[in-house]
């Protein structure tokens, strides 16, 4: 299967707009589950407003949240796919810029020193484009995530040491959720990276935070941590918007990687309740959109 850059550009444009407007079904189901369990009347009202907003965005064809985020495109290239990798990255960038200017919506991206905004959602190194390879035959997937800043600003890394054990990881996650309070727009998906190098650890936390609700870490030890930590952070009572209640997190997701004998790194990256995500799958028959 050959994938043309022009097609990628169109898809990259469409994905950004879809992600900003349509919340994935797993997140909607997550809201329903939290609302059913919530015992605090104030928190019930907050969750009710969040759920109502999802419907308003769909009915009015509007963005769910004003924060158009930092655009992230995750590309997975399967077997038997012919694509010019450099051209693919340029096409994604053009699609991202066109979505911003043609829709139009707010460019939330500025130069880190001058704070200049090119009004294109692009800049040095942005959009973030991560390319990986998969074993799927004649399939190319692009996942688009507009990562909001309220949650991204609450990102944490701790290079714990082996003598602190797994307790250090657990304590760190609980304390990060406490520290973040209402600033992350809870209920959140708390992404936890365990192991790796410092940069890999933070990347794993982002992968975990942006994974669909209901998915599980494929490392059984990571999956066990997910269950324990999800229960623990929801005992804190931070609640939706940090105004109190049971629903602090939809879930804690964990991703793991091997690490050095002297290291015990843990990172936390959170996703806000507007856990936006869109996906396009290229196959020989055409492109299919989903989440």
């Amino acid at each position: 299967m050959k994938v043309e850059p022009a097609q990628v550009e169109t898809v990259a444009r469409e994905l950004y707009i879809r992600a900003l407007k349509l919340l994935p079904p797993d997140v909607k189901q997550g809201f329903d589950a939290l609302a059913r369990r919530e015992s605090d009347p104030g928190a019930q009202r907050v969750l009710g407003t969040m759920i109502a907003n999802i419907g308003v965005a769909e009915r009015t064809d509007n963005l769910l949240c004003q924060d158009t985020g930092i655009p992230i495109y995750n590309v997975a290239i399967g077997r038997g796919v012919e694509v010019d990798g450099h051209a693919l990255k340029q096409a994604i960038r053009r699609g991202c810029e066109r979505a911003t200017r043609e829709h139009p919506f707010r460019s939330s991206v500025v130069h880190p020193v001058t704070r200049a905004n090119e009004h294109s959602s692009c800049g040095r190194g942005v959009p973030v484009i991560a390319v990986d390879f998969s074993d799927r035959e004649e399939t190319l997937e692009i996942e688009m995530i507009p990562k909001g800043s309220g949650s991204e600003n609450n990102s944490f890394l701790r290079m714990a040491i082996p003598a602190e054990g797994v307790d250090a990881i657990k304590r760190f996650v609980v304390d990060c959720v406490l520290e973040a309070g209402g600033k992350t727009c809870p209920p959140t998906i708390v992404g936890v990276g365990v192991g790796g190098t410092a940069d890999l650890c933070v990347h794993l936390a982002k992968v975990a935070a942006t994974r669909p609700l209901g998915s599980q870490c494929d490392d059984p030890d990571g999956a066990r941590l997910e269950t324990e930590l999800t229960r623990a952070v929801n005992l804190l009572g931070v609640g939706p918007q940090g105004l109190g209640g049971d629903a602090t997190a939809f879930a804690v997701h964990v991703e793991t990687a091997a690490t050095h004998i002297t290291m015990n790194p843990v990172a936390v990256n959170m996703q806000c309740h507007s856990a936006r995500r869109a996906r396009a799958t290229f196959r020989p028959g055409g492109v299919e959109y989903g989440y």
Partner: protein
Amino acid sequence: MAHHEFAMPVTEAQARALKVNDTVTLQGTLYGIRDATQIHLFDRGRSTRFDLRGHAVIHTAPNVKKVPKSAEHPAGYAPLCIGTTTSDRMERFTHPLMRRCGVRLIIGKGGLREGSLAAFGELGGAYLAIIGGTAALETTWVEAIEDVDLDDLNPESLWKFRVRGFGPLLVAMDSHGASLYSEVKRHALARRAEALASLGVKA
């Protein structure tokens, strides 16, 4: 837990009458302000032609579309999606916003800190919580962008919105020293040991 309908601007007495857990709905004028707006106003010595005395500001940088100026769009901008950003980053600007500009109400998400709470008590103001991430809904409460200042900072300009039925907003910090955020944080810290115990970890 009273409900207040405010036709903006409001007096100091109206702002001081607010208590946490009350609700407020705004009519008329609302100003939008953000990090860069306040950095330029308070750190870089710029000023605005808008009179903010008695008004409410919302922590926002909206999605807008440039259009020809008209009766419907007097500033030449159509509002597309207007939401609210995390307030905490702008904590240090609460006092100057109130003291120098006369702002009475701050609308945001996630709350402000002790310094802002002190400013609300000293100068007569309150923090009104909106539900973050519900911009599609919030946009339906905005009738028009009436005017804009400091627009070189776009989208972090100083925006003048005309709103109708903007709310209900929750009074989360008041002029009597009460803050729902401090209360929730205190409770959460008290529950930390329980959360850690559930993980088999010592506090």
